[in-house]
């Protein structure tokens, strides 16, 4: 038996997930083969907006190997409800009906129109060519400002408007703040549309359970528990008969935090035909039919004194919903709304969000989901204020930071940050980066008229994560609670099973949760098995998104394991004929204080609990405990980032030379995993700042329709990351932990763009949009040199 184990939380335990992944033995959804399984292919609208005047699948049905084909009308009676949106952010929000197959109108390029079911994927795909569709193209609307004009073409004629909702928030005396201001800065920032690009495309396998007439759905999702609820709603199969399994899932970044039409279609067709149905997305389908991210226009105004003290902030936001509301589409900008004030203390704030329909792929959560947009806007406008006042970006930030605090503190965003210490992280990142040295190098290059200029960009940020308090989420009209659940079971052998409601897809929960449980129970991580991602074995959970897994789900594991340890202690006291109060528990051993030879191991206790004999009278046998954890607040990681870029002013090419990041996510469970999350997060932020953009033509055709045309950064495009951490425990939860999955993506885009603008300042450049591609940088330089608006 294991003896006297060390403490594992905080240590770089190598990941338990890796062996299957590095040897090619993982269980991806696309690996599943079942007897009788048929393949589904989806016919998608090639038009952004069109009436379907004629649709005939009969020729497709004639093709060898084709078993069935369905149109929207064929399946209409099988739906108990349209595709649900679970975050109707206002009472009067406009929510168009969204059926799994369009019935008479397609509203974006990629809208599903018909399906073919065939013996294999090649045959199913071929048969799509034999479906006859007559489309009558309708006027398209793609630009949000155009969409809100009175005579704009309507995405959904029956709604009479393209405006989905207006969501306002105002705190303090905003008019007064702007009247008092010595300086008002007004800017417009564009959050370009992004394609999430999890490297595993989506995939589903659905089959009917003969025993109970229920259904099992394997799906590459972040949210099997949410999918179970939604699938039950849409198909009418009662939820106790719906099993949803997320096997190994190859990345999500929010794009798999959803409920998609293909999940619904495969399920009802599997039931209708009585045979398993598989669908695997190809990449071009992924680009059209999986949600996109961002796509907002931010009009932002900052009021400040001539000394650089911020007085107020006013934001008008247009948020592109795309053609339909997916699972949490309308809520994404709302989540950001609380965070525009950032890490700066001032008195007045207002924001008005308009959700707008266009004939494009629906948007929804993409890594950061609303908060990268907010952090970008405030961090850019604070830099603009510094430029106006001829102050250093460090000085303007220090002037407006909150005094450090470690108890909940009210903010202009109308929420309570749990803890912040910006001066500490800023000091550390300045030291790490040799800020003075960088400014000297910059001056040299400027003096020498070096064609390659150096830019130094800052971002000091906090973010709201750990999506929980059920009561707060309900008050925001969010359609799910925010607790997380865990069950911890110790077998008679002393080995442990941890059931979690979180659903990892790269985050390493199996390793981290093993560390947490091992410490609570005095065993090693290898003694712990973590069960997740299957509603049959992990029935209670709300899954993985919004950097909630550790601060909600990991804490639930900790608390459930502590409950098991508490019961074990009672049994140990009984076995040792000692008082519980006299027992110490260390290194997996209960011993009587003062007489260390009187002891039992946790494994002895587990054996007794299993045997049911040597336990206190009236105690239930077994060592198992459940915990539903619903925290009192969100958590707020924070950090300071410095991006150093070299911009070739002759070609416009930007290279990130160095990236320094000091992040504070409270106590760390596994530093290897946390650093990895920060690396990947920063990489996705750099990707938005410099490389990526989903582009549509004027007819609503997605021009960046595959990885050939959409610029995903590879290894040559990205830098090494110089990281450090400070540790400010959150007062929100008993472990003091905060999320870290999105922090890098939230902190980095403004640091990169601020650096590009800083590099080009001598050329008169004061603003540039994302992505700062070589062409855009070059054009911006030319415009600034020619005296135009840059």
């Amino acid at each position, binding site marked *: 038996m294991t003896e006297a184990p060390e403490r594992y939380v905080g240590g770089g335990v190598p990941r338990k*997930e890796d062996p299957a*992944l590095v040897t090619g033995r993982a269980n991806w959804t696309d690996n599943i083969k079942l007897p009788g399984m048929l393949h589904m292919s989806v016919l998608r609208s090639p038009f952004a907006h069109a009436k379907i005047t004629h649709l005939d699948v009969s020729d497709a049905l004639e093709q060898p190997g084709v078993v069935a084909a369905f149109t929207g009308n064929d399946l209409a009676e099988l739906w108990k409800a349209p595709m649900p949106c679970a975050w109707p952010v206002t009472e009067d929000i406009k929510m168009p009906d969204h059926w799994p197959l369009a019935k008479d109108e397609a509203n974006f390029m990629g809208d599903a129109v018909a399906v073919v079911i065939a013996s294999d994927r090649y045959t199913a795909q071929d048969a799509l060519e034999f479906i006859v569709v007559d489309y009558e193209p309708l006027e398209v609307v793609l630009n949000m400002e155009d969409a809100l004009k009175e005579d704009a073409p309507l995405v959904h004629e029956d709604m009479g408007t393209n405006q989905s909702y207006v969501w306002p928030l105002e705190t303090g005396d905003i008019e007064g703040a702007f009247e008092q201001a010595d300086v008002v800065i007004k800017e417009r920032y564009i959050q370009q549309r992004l394609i999430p690009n999890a*490297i*595993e495309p989506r995939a589903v396998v659905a089959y009917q359970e003969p025993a109970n007439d229920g259904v099992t759905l394997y799906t590459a999702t972040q949210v099997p528990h949410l999918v179970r609820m939604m699938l039950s709603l849409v198909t009418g199969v009662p939820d106790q008969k719906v099993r949803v399994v997320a096997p190994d899932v190859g990345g999500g970044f929010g794009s798999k935090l959803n409920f998609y039409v293909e999940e619904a279609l495969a399920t009802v067709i599997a039931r209708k035909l009585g045979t398993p149905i598989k669908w695997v997305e190809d990449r071009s389908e992924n680009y059209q039919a999986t949600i996109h991210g961002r796509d907002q226009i931010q009009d932002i105004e900052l009021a400040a004194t001539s000394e650089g003290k911020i007085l107020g902030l006013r934001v008008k936001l247009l948020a592109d919903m795309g053609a339909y509301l997916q699972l949490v589409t309308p809520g994404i900008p709302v989540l950001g709304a609380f965070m525009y004030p950032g890490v700066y203390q001032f008195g007045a704030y207002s924001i008005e969000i308009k959700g707008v329909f266009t004939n494009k792929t629906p948007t929804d959560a993409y890594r950061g989901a609303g908060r990268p947009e907010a952090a970008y806007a405030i961090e850019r406008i604070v830099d603009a204020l510094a430029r106006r006042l001829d102050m250093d970006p460090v000085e303007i930030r220090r002037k407006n930071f909150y005094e450090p605090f470690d108890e909940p503190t009210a903010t202009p965003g109308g929420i309570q940050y749990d803890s912040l210490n910006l001066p500490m992280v800023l000091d550390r990142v300045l030291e790490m980066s040799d800020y003075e040295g960088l400014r000297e190098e910059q001056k040299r290059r400027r003096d020498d008229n070096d064609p390659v200029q150096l830019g130094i960009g800052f971002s000091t940020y906090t973010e709201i994560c750990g999506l929980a308090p059920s009561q707060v989420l309900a008050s925001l009209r969010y359609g799910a609670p925010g607790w997380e659940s865990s069950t911890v079971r110790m077998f008679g052998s002393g080995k442990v099973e941890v059931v979690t409601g979180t659903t990892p897809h*790269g985050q390493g929960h199996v390793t981290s949760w093993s560390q947490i449980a091992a410490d609570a129970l005095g065993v090693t991580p290898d003694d712990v098995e973590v069960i997740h991602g299957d509603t049959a074995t992990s029935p209670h959970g709300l899954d993985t998104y919004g950097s909630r897994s550790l601060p909600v789900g990991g804490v639930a594991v900790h608390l459930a394991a502590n409950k098991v340890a508490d019961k074990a202690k009672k049994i140990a006291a009984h076995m040792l004929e000692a008082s519980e109060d006299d027992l110490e528990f260390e290194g997996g051993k209960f011993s009587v204080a003062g007489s260390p030879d009187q002891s039992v191991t946790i494994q002895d206790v587990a054996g007794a609990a299993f045997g049911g004999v040597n336990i206190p009278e009236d105690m239930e046998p077994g060592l198992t405990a459940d915990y539903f954890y619903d925290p009192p607040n969100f958590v707020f990681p924070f950090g300071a980032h410095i991006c150093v870029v070299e911009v070739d002013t002759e070609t416009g090419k930007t290279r990130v030379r160095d990236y320094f990041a000091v992040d504070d996510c409270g106590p760390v469970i596994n530093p290897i995993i946390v650093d990895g999350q920060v690396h*990947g997060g920063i990489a996705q932020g750099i990707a938005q700042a410099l490389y990526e953009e989903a582009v549509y033509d004027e007819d609503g055709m997605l021009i960046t329709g595959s990885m050939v045309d959409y610029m995903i950064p590879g*290894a040559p495009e990205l830098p090494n990351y110089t990281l450090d951490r400070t540790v400010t425990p959150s007062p929100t939860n008993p472990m003091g932990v905060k999320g870290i999955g999105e922090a890098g993506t939230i902190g980095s885009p403004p640091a990169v763009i601020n650096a590009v603008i800083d590099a080009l300042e001598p050329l008169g450049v004061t603003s540039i949009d994302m992505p700062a591609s070589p062409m855009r940088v070059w054009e911006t330089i030319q415009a600034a040199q020619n005296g135009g608006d840059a």
Partner: protein
Amino acid sequence: MRKVSVKVNGRDFEHEVEPRMLLVHYLREVVNLTGTMVGCNTSNCGACTVLLDGESVKSCTMFAVQADGSEIVTVQGIAENGNWHPMQTAFHENHGLQCGYCTPGMIMASISLLKENPDPTEDEIREGLEGNYCRCTGYENIIKSVQQAAGQTS
């Protein structure tokens, strides 16, 4: 249908396949070696990378029949007698993977890279892996993994 005879991970296979069947689908669905992944269908992401007669190829942009007579090695064939290939160990020890979906292709491309250039600089590693996308790691730990496998670090 056309006949294809290949050696995959040391075993001989012979099948009748449609001439248009992609090599990756042949490996995954006919030979049942599901360790090789499809990511993009356009030869950009490299998740499907395997070694064909010792050279790295993207198996999603090659027909199975083009591999006739060849020897193929996938991620499932690089461990020997249960001992991981040093590249597999290096990815594990350097946290060179998160979700792991790109990993089989990334490992095969890295093995090929070191075969061609046993002592690469960091820039050479970055350039050498430009045809393999990872969306999770930001690449730094992948670069470190390759450096370890090259014996440049311990």
